[in-house]
């Protein structure tokens, strides 16, 4: 399941809803992304996450489907927020549930890595020196590249 929303989410409630009634699940892994203080700034600012409605849902759905092809998951969920957010706020939630803990861990990490390169979100930070759009980081592409299937020569 995927959801794109301005509202906050409750990790415990999401886990409970996702796993209810399935007693084959042995392990549930969650990743919650939080808004950090901006690097190098002592002042705490807010940020706004813009996204591409329609394409966001499509890309999150594709990423989730890919994870479920690769790992034996009993359940999975991606929730991504948009709109104004302050440091400490939850931005994104990934949940994976499986009979096997390692599948749950690997799939969660895969989803988080790919979210950062495939999901159409753009972050604008507001600080004491005004607003700025955040640049993409090469590090995120590197993390996602780990999961590429080996290419044929």
């Amino acid at each position, binding site marked *: 399941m995927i959801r794109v929303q301005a509202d906050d989410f409750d990790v415990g409630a999401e886990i409970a809803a996702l796993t209810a009634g399935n007693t084959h699940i042995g392990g549930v892994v969650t990743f919650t992304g939080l808004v950090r203080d901006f690097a190098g700034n002592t002042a705490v600012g807010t940020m706004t*996450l*813009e996204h*591409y409605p329609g394409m966001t849902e499509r890309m999150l759905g594709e990423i989730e489907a890919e994870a479920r092809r690769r790992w034996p998951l009993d359940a999975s969920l991606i929730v991504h927020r948009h709109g104004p957010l302050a440091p400490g706020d939850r931005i994104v939630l990934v949940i994976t549930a499986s009979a096997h803990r390692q599948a749950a861990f690997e799939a969660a990490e895969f989803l988080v890595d790919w979210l950062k390169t495939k*999901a159409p979100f*753009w972050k604008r930070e507001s600080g004491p020196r005004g607003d700025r759009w955040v640049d993409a980081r090469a590090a995120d592409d590197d993390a996602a590249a780990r999961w590429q299937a080996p290419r044929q020569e």
Partner: protein
Amino acid sequence: MKVLYFAWLRERVGTGEEEVSPPPEITSVSALMDWLAKRSAGHARAFENRDIVRAAVNQEFADPADAVSPGDEVAFFPPMTGGRP
């Protein structure tokens, strides 16, 4: 053809969405960018550095050489920057 702009491309163009009718010879993402860049000073600034402009056609990522057709939804935006811990 519906064209969408996000983040600083939207700010430079001055709108998030516009309906355009490019001439028939505009058949690729790359040619569409050239054509759009001539519509206004804001468009020109939005497309001044093509290396950092990404595109999607009908909500799928597209390369500059990919095709565009009159009924398409074409979007332009910077590289994505979701949550990044």
